[in-house]
């Protein structure tokens, strides 16, 4: 079974929220840690993409993981109006060159509105090319946060492939399940889905194709989400879909 983690970050943050030793700076060390836990592959971002700037971090990530084909790169977006990452077409052209098939939005730290006014042009291109957008459910934009922010985005762009990561562990099914039912291109990751019986209950109701395996490393240890999914009470086929099949399909469908 391919265990493909959709939620991993490389690099050292300037203000660690867990003991500093928990963070990993080098790609080879990340691969070691993944092997230690039994994870084969990861969609990776670099902390500099969020904490410094996508202008720096996107390229830093490519340099860091270029020689490791088990690490799949993802980039952060910025409003096209300031031109820092070029026009949407230029961004997509660079994604093609560097083999990037997924994008992240960090509206809180990057100080922009995650709305159609800002990103309409880019999102239309992402929809056409089926490029998935990853956004943490902890983010905030336009005065709203979490799933309220995500729903506002999905209402305007229902065909955007959108993956919400890091939903809290303190009970968010009542928040995200309505969005799963309404928006067919909406996915959640499993990094904080600690709910007893949660994966089984979710998959019984919605099938296994709306959930992606993610660990939330390095703030969260890899082992928790891993063992939870490995022994979730769902079929092996369903498990394979959540563990890697769904993410592989999403990335395969991207046309650059």
């Amino acid at each position: 079974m391919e265990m493909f983690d959709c939620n991993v970050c490389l690099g050292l943050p300037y203000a660690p929220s867990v003991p500093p030793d928990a963070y990993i700076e080098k790609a080879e060390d990340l691969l070691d840690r993944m092997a230690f836990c039994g994870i084969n592959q990861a969609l990776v971002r670099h902390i500099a993409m969020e904490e410094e700037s996508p202008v720096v971090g996107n390229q830093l990530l490519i340099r860091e993981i270029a020689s490791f084909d088990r690490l799949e790169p993802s980039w952060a977006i910025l409003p096209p109006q300031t031109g820092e990452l070029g026009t949407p077409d230029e961004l997509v052209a660079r994604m093609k060159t560097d083999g990037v098939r997924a994008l992240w939005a960090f509206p809180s730290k990057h100080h922009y509105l995650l709305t159609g006014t800002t990103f309409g042009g880019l999102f239309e291109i992402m929809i056409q090319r089926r490029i998935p957008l990853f956004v943490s459910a902890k983010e905030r934009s336009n005065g709203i946060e979490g799933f309220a922010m995500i729903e506002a985005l999905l209402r305007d762009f229902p065909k955007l492939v959108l993956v919400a990561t890091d939903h809290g562990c303190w009970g968010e099914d009542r928040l995200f399940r309505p969005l799963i039912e309404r928006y067919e291109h909406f996915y959640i990751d499993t990094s904080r889905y600690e709910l007893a019986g949660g994966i089984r209950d979710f998959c019984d109701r919605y099938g296994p194709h709306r959930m992606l395996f993610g660990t939330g490393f390095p703030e969260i240890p890899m082992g928790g989400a891993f063992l939870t999914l490995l022994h979730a009470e769902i079929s092996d086929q369903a498990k394979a879909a959540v563990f890697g099949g769904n993410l592989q399909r999403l990335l395969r469908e991207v046309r650059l």
Partner: protein
Amino acid sequence: MRNPSALAKEFRKYGKAASCPIIDMHGHFGPYQGIYFPADTAEAMMRIMDRAGVRMIVCSSHTALVDTRRGNPEMAEVVAKYPDRFRAYWALNPNYPDRMKEEIEAYPEQKGFVGFKFLSDYHKVAITDDRYGPALEFAQEHRMMILMHTWGNSPYDGPALIEEVAKRYPEVTILMGHSGYGEWDRAIGVARDYPKVYLELTAAYHANGVIEEMVQGAGSHKMLFGTDMPWFTPHYGIGCVLCAAITDEDRHNILHRNAETLLRLRGVNLEEDDG
């Protein structure tokens, strides 16, 4: 590099380990306000416990946190029905001192309970407040165990306040539920400095690197496993313990041995069941 832990291999293959019959020292029961639970009945919880090799769980019902008079008897019924799998904490609410006094007096008659449960952050009464006095004095006199909800920097149950209580009531065994979540160093220090204070891991396990700091700072003999089930699945916490950079000896201490010692001291028979 593969995880060399024999326990990790066994859990990975079977979801449980015969040599490691887990005891969950922090459970609940029944529905609660802000969360949807797919598995909050005793039967649904046992099904999940079986899949993860959890031999026993010690719970306070959510109802008891809201209304002790309805909730504590509800938990007694669960223990009476499944005595091999459940034990309970007798929940107290200091906002109703007369009621609390009656419930403390009634405690010795109860079967299946292994201590008190305090939820100071939710009841909005500081653990050092006089209203907790009668319960703490009773616990001191009877050398009882208390599971206290503890949270970093809380004005009600932060680790600094737990330290005051531990100093005043040295005979009380204090389980710091959630290990003073977020204020890790302070909580670890209290567990290190006070012989009867333990770090209980519910939710704390998901802070990467913290299990290692606890083992180094307080020692694995001062740590206990818990899940808040039906909130969290045991496999999540177990997975975090298995991938932490500690030894299998530490893992056995955390996942069952320390709890076995505490429960045996309180009359729980753990001999015949092989887990």
